[in-house]
């Protein structure tokens, strides 16, 4: 066992993959001699040559597009988008080709490529350096979308992503690049498409991924001081979704909160709520709630603390899970009035759980 930061674990994964498989290529912006702006590719050009790890022209669509061509011809490119907002120029390539080529060709041209994207905030980055774009990718059929929360997973999941016959969007929680953890050299953790329970608990389930797993665990620790025993599930794979693990947890606890950094509206948490609710409805003592960023563009560094979910906000949300009393079925509201034009005038009650 060695203690590594997540960035080091990712570096090791790339290193081992490059060493073991001639087909693996690493390229993008500044991934060569500089080693990437987060040093994830540190030393790879030196170790493997310009041929295996190199700087490309500064054009994300071209980077992904050339990776498509390489993968068509049997290589296993691993490309980096420097920050997630800078993945947007490649969106058409990702949605219209990366996600679809295997399906388009009835399996004839599979694209075993990996798009590494540092995502999320919390690092004091100026505009465009802290986006969370996972919902865009997770909604796109044909992509595997995964995100590690620990150095051990970072190593294992990146190895597995590179070995996958399918294209993988590999989201790296940039604010956890410097978090340390034990990594057994070469060791694989759970398969990358499986969620894992990071903390066993009985009272409610916190569902998190990537940067928020640590925050969820911190919240569980704080909650335990208040006498609540919280289970924490680390999703790891955003697409596909591991229904089995999550459903089992929520059926057990009867309550759940999903946490992510991205804006809440239309965010990935909505999918989690929808499928968990469908599968666990009669086990639920309260609606599955979400804690996410506000529905605003990512704020400037000096305001990001207010935007990002933290322990307190998650505790507050746990507190809204109707712990005290069983709910009493309310009177049904009177049927709405029908306006002369045939449109119903709704009651316009926006209170939450009024």
């Amino acid at each position, binding site marked *: 066992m060695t203690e590594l930061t997540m960035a080091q674990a990712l570096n090791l994964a790339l290193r081992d993959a490059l060493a073991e498989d001639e087909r693996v290529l690493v390229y993008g912006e500044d991934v060569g001699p500089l080693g990437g702006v987060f040093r994830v590719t540190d030393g790879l050009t030196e170790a493997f040559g310009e041929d295996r790890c190199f700087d490309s022209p500064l054009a994300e669509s071209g980077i992904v*597009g050339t990776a498509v061509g390489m993968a068509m011809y049997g290589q296993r490119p691993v490309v980096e988008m420097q920050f997630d907002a800078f993945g947007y120029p490649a969106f058409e390539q990702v949605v219209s080709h990366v996600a679809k080529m295997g399906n388009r060709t009835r399996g004839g041209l599979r694209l075993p490529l990996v798009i590494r994207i540092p995502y999320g905030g919390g690092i004091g980055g100026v505009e465009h350096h802290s986006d969370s774009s996972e919902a865009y990718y997770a909604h796109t059929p044909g992509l595997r979308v995964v995100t590690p929360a620990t150095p051990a997973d970072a190593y294992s999941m990146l190895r597995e992503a590179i070995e996958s016959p399918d294209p993988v969007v590999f989201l790296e929680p940039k604010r956890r690049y410097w978090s340390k953890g034990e990594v057994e050299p070469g060791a694989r953790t759970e398969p990358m498409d499986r969620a894992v329970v990071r903390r066993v608990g009985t009272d409610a389930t916190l569902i998190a991924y990537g940067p928020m797993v640590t925050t969820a665990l911190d919240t569980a620790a704080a909650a335990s001081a208040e006498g609540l025993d919280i289970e924490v599930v680390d999703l790891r794979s955003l697409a596909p979704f591991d229904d089995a693990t999550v459903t089992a947890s929520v059926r057990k606890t009867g309550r759940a909160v999903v946490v992510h950094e991205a804006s809440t509206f239309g965010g990935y948490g909505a999918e989690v709520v929808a499928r968990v609710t469908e599968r666990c409805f009669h086990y639920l003592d309260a609606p599955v709630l979400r804690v996410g960023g506000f529905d605003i563009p990512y704020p400037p560094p000096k305001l990001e603390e207010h935007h990002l979910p933290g322990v307190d906000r998650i505790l507050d949300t746990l507190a809204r899970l109707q712990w005290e009393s069983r709910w009493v079925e309310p009177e049904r509201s009177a049927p709405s009035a029908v306006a002369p034009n045939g449109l119903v005038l709704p009651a316009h009650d926006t209170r939450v759980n009024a």
Partner: protein
Amino acid sequence: MKRIDERPAPAPPGLPSLEPVRLVDRHGRRVDTPLYQSPGNAVLLELLRGMVVGRRFDQQAGALTRQGRLAVYPSSHGQEACQVGGALALDEGDWLFPTYRDSVALVTRGVDPVEVLTLLRGNWHSGYDSNRYRCAPQCTPLATNASHAVGLTYAARRKGENVAALVLMGDGATSEGDAHEAYNFAAVWNAPVVFLIQNNQWAISVPVHKQSKAPTLAHKAIGYGIRGHHVDGNDAAAVHSVVSGALADARAGKGPAIIEAQTYRIDPHTNADAPQRYRDATEVDRWRGRDPLNRLEALLRAEGLLDDDALAAMAAEGEALATRVRERMAGEDTLDPDELFAHVFASPTAQLLEQRQALRDELREA
């Protein structure tokens, strides 16, 4: 450690000629063009054969569309010299990257014509085996497959294979950012890729002068430090010669090239288009007068390389192909709804298997 501030200025490749390269004029007479060599007689005959067969295929596809047997068909009519000249310039090991418009190029390349039409029939998205024919799927999002070609040749080079690629693109597609990025990656990586722009003067209803103010689209090459060529796209001999030369240069490590071929889309954009809204029939007529088939036929006849029988044989070949296509497309496609879930990933996820089951149940009930 790289040092670059004293960038040695490479001798910039020369400007493409404003006058397109032409080996055969519209009356079928040879034009003396010192820098370019005419293909040999066998190739000239092959070009004509490809165009005759290609045009017949194209007509057949149009007819099938009118009968409702194809969902849509973007015709190649008028552009046969580009598509046949381009496809025949490829070596067997090379790759072709066609668009939706390049059915005739695919047929010329030897792809089963019914498989070429799979997409346009509304059947599966790509009907042919890309690896077998070394033809990428026909690409619809404009200019997006150009970078695929760059990556593919890069991969081939890593494997020690000297594979060149020919990317077909339209005049309109050159306006997309993806065209630029692909040209630039090709240049910087010295990739053996030839970009053949079929300037058919229109992008649906938009004329090329609304796409670009460049003297020729081949002039774009200058901005990437690569070769640009400007060719008469209705002269199959010239197209073949220029594309072959560019591919040979590419394979020889001399880098990529951008070729503009001046041609014309005789038919509407697709069967769904209404060209009377935006262009004059007289323009179409003028270009009919520059028909690529007539031109080459005239040359070959004049030079005694072609007689009525030989031409009839080509026509018969086209007819046979059309008949085969018609026959094989007479029946209904049978598509398996299960296949919707089969190819999304290398093996279907639990989620997809659940959805497949739900659809099966639904279809059983119905």
